[in-house]
């Protein structure tokens, strides 16, 4: 398996990632990319309430959120994350103008997404949050 980043940074090691994705294969792929990049995984869930419980429990520092969770809009997660000042990436098959609901301060990535782009975006986001 090709690893995009061979050496995980400290920031990556200390950042607990939440993956919210209803498609198990994609979730599996994302988890592998994050783990390979050195991120700690806070949780991989496919349902809104599971994800909300994790966010509210304070066990994650950033999140990758699929906008459509088996037909359920993931906007409440975005709101909850934004309220806590946690950075997150919205991944979706939809283009941004097709998305409904609020996604404050969201960074959108379109599926399918190159792992490198995902990690770059995530790092940039975390950097911005740090600064």
């Amino acid at each position, binding site marked *: 398996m090709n690893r995009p980043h061979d050496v995980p940074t400290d920031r990556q090691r200390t950042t607990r990632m939440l993956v919210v994705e209803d498609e198990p294969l994609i979730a599996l*792929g994302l988890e592998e990319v994050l783990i390979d990049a050195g991120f700690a995984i806070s949780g991989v869930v*496919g349902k809104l309430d599971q994800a909300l419980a994790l966010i509210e429990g304070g066990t994650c520092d950033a999140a990758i959120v699929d906008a459509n969770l088996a037909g359920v809009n993931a906007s409440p997660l975005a709101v909850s994350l934004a309220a806590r000042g946690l950075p997150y990436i919205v991944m979706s*098959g939809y283009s941004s103008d097709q998305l409904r609901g609020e996604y404050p301060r969201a960074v959108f990535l379109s599926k*399918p997404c190159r792992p490198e782009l995902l990690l770059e975006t995530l790092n940039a986001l975390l950097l911005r949050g740090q600064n």
Partner: protein
Amino acid sequence: MTNRDPDLPDASGTLPTPPPGSSALDDAQTSSSVMVGLLGEDVSAKANMAFPVVGVGASAGGLVAVTQLLQALPADTGASFVIIQHLAPDVTSNLSEILSRSTLMPVCEVCDEPEVEPDHVYVIPPGRDMIIAGGKLVLLEQDRYARRRGIDQFFCSLAEECGHKAIGVVLSGAMSDGTLGLEAIKAAGGITFAQNDSAQHDSMPRSAVASGCVDFVLPPDQIAHEIARIARHPYVAPARSEALVEDASGHVRIAEIVHRALGVDFTHYKTNTLLRRIARRMVLHKMTTMREYEDYLRRDPAEVEALFRDILISVTTFFRDPESCEALAQTVFPKLFAGRTRQEPVRIWTLGCSTGEEAYSLAMVYAECAEVAGSDVPLQLFATDLNSICVEKARTGVYPASIEQHVSPTRLQRFFTKEEAGYRICKDIRERCIFSRHNVLVDPPFSRVDLISCRNLLIYMEPVLQKQIMTLLHYSLKPGGHLWLGRSETAGASRALFDVEDVRNKIFVRRVGRSVPGLTFRAALGGGRTEPFLRAAPGAPLEVPRHNLPKEAERILLAKYVPPGVVISAAMEIVQFRGDTGPYLAPAAGAPSLHLLKMLREGLLVGVRAAILRAGEEARPVREERLRVQSDQGFRELAVEVIPIKVGDVKQSGFLVLFDEHGKSDRGSLGAREDSPVAPATADKIATTTNDEIIRLTQELAATREYLQAVIEQHEAVNEELQSANEESQSANEEMQSVNEELETSKEEIQSSNEELATVNDELNSRNLELSLLNTSLRVARNYAESIVANIRSPLLVLDAEFRVKTASAAFYETFQVSLTATEGRLIYDLGNGQWNIAALRKLLEELLPQNHQIDDYEVRHSFENIGFRTMVLNAQRLVPAADNEALIVLAIEDVTERARADQTLRESQDRLRHAADAAGLTYVEVDFARSRLRAAENFAAVMGYALPLEEAVDTAAGPRLLLDHVIALDRPRVEAALQDFLQGKAPGKIVYRVRGDDQVERWIESVWSTENGPDGKPLRSFATNLDISEMKLAEEHGKLLMAEVNHRAKNLLAVVQAIAQQTVKHADPATFVKRLTDRIEGLTTSQDLLVQNNWRGVDVSRLVEGQLAHFKDLIGKRILLMGPTARLTPAAAQGIGMALHELATNASKYGSLSNKVGRVHISWKVAEVPTPIFTMRWLEEGGPKVELPTRRGFGQTVIGRMAESAVDGTVEVEYRESGLSWQLSAPVAGTIERERDEPST
């Protein structure tokens, strides 16, 4: 006093004139010695006043006349004047004051019943009626609602009070008051005046003059002169001169003159009546001695007539004696109806009918009685009077309005017709009455009369005439007939002829018996009526005819000396009674018979019959002695002698039967001459020679005697025959005369009818003229109408009542292509082979039209023979038939086929357009600037969801803004701006916006605006065409959603492929990678296919299994065994389980039970509900190579393990048994299985 019934006498006595009959009753019965009783009406006896009283009646225009009258009157006439002026009841009158300026006489308004004094003027006060009674003026309460009859009322009382000293003057006034009063005054012997045409209102005096009762018609001042003169005349002056009676025989001479001139002999009229009437004429002619008047009469025939009429003057009224009328109605008329048929009219004779009132009254009462009794017996009423003027008047049957006093409204209504001049007797009553001039003393009487009314006629007559007339009336009446006399009259000396039926009402019944009128009627009927009648000598037996004395002597002789007997025919019928046969004969019970044997009293039958038979056989007289007859005194003995009588050749013509109670007397038998009544002479003292001679002579004498006797008998027989024949012919003659008289009357009637017919003819001629004029104008109108019909373009038919064509217009023939001959006179339904036999037309003609005069625009659709299918509009009118014309129907036909077709096309096209617009959701609004109107299409509300006022007048400037009202707030600024631009011509008028309807539904509307300009460039109208594009918008939205979804899924799937590729690449060389990746994508695709096939709504488990194991299709059911219920997996579960099954199958074919040729796979699944709903699925392999634990965890393990668990949120247990792999998945049903069964209930 109110509501007086004019037909009833007034019981309270305030009626000024009591029924004249009753006063006359008193006169006739109590004071015959006074100068009286001439007439029932002649109240001279009551001339209580010592001086004349002048009644002056006036109404409208009367003041001038009265003033003129008073001015011309000397103050010392010696008469008293009473002014009766109609005055307004509520206004105080200054009349007396005004009048006092015109005369020196004292004038006063009446109050307190003043005694009337000469040379005074009395004026009636307003609101009162007045009469004179007992020398005083008496005021009466005025009946406010009664017709004004104050003058009549006073004059009547004046006539009664003053008699011949009453003077009546009628001056100017309207209506007819005063006429009846003047009549009463004149009847009482008073003098009457009426104003001439100098009157301002002349109907009152004219009415009086028309009644014929006015002596002088003069202007007021001349009336005054005449009054002044008359007041001093001995006739009325207080110091009455004896001038009138100075000439004791004067009236007889005057009666002679009248007799000679007019053929009416008044000699036996009551002397005082004559004197009074003559004196009255003398007054009028200013004469003082009778000789003078006599001379005048000889010079002037007209005066003779006038005197004659004055003598006969009388007052009569309708229903004058109601009580007696009622008595007739109750007792007499019903008897007359009894047992009669229509062929036997009731005959009534009214003598002295005067002007006919009584005759008509009787006819009316008769008509009423007949109606009550339900009788249809006709009435024949003869009414006669001496005075031909009266008769003439009676015939016309017209009476003044004042008869309302005496005739009840009911009778007026029923028996009269109102005319300008008053009332006319109706035709029905008039036709029953026959009026004729007739002198009862001279002219033959009517015969077989049922009822004679002879009222107040006898009292004119001296007793001698009275008796004659009564005999005559007896003759005229049928046996049992009734006689009705006046109140003051009685049967008197003729009591023997009549029985009293009703003493109070003077109704008598004729006694049975024969009377021979003691009069010889005039024989020459055709001649004038001037022949004097013969009077019977006083005291002469009435039944003796005056001619043929010898015969009469013989009769007396026979009556005296011949025994009573009868003459009978051979058949024993009695031909003649001779002498008093009463003791021997009596009428037998049963039908009347004159058969002798039936009439013989008891005891005579056998003897008489035998004697007659013997006498017949032996042809000689037969005497039967000693017969006994029963009589009141017992049995009487008598002899009966029967003598055969021969007449001519006939052997036995009859018998004389004599009843001889003195049979033993010396007279012996009349007929039996065998025993000579002469006894043989004693001859012993006579010489023998002479003795023989004597014997011879005696014998000769006896023979001669016998011969003589036979001759006498023969003569007697002939005589008797002659007498009998004579009597018969006399009786026949009398009847003929009576019939003749009736014929005479009829002739006069016919003449009068002729007159009427001539009048009617004239009238008809004039009508004819009118009709011909009308005809001409009708013809013009007809030509006009015909030319209209000929030129009218619509077909026109005229039908008769049976729907036959009378005429048809040219347009009809043209339109329906038919000929005239095949049309006219034919039934409309038969025209042109019945092409008009249309149900709708039948309905129109036979049902609708009879109920309406006119039917408009009645549409008939029908296929006509010549011209095909047509739509016709029919206008039918029924012409109401005038007179005896037949009813016609005009039928106008209009062919509207083309119009109807065009209408239909237009209507259909409009309908299509409307349907299309409705379907498309297209509507429009029009703003009409010229008419300031906003008009929306009918479907506006349906399209837009809200209504615009239809045809609403609007302010055109604000009009378009109305369109903005329902635009949602979000779009409104945009629409408004666009509209503004459009109206200013800056932008094309097209815009899309949303409106919210009254139903709160939001609609997308696309509006296209356009404006139509007038020739001046100014806008006329603006249109807004609105299209509902909501569905289009919805579809657009849906499409966008769908695009997003497709995008999402496609990218998701690509992401999955990317993940698979990442996983697959880990432990593989490029060739293996490609194969594996391809396989896995294929598995993914399979699941995707199944999901898409099912509309992404889940996949059945068995189908998913079969899909993923498609490579092992042949093994399914053999080595791959499926077992489980039908259950549909959710898309996520289907994808996860699908991939797991794909990995399991790949693994089994590589390493497991599908890698050899015998291994099997059991795939089973179930849905358990307890304890919690759980779906389990198991993959169990057997018969494969020995299983070894995998050395490393590959992607396959992840897929059947973690990934499957994640997809269904369940758990997976994998066991690597030696016999084969076991894979078991447990997942909550929720999220795994589509619960289809629940769907319908949720």
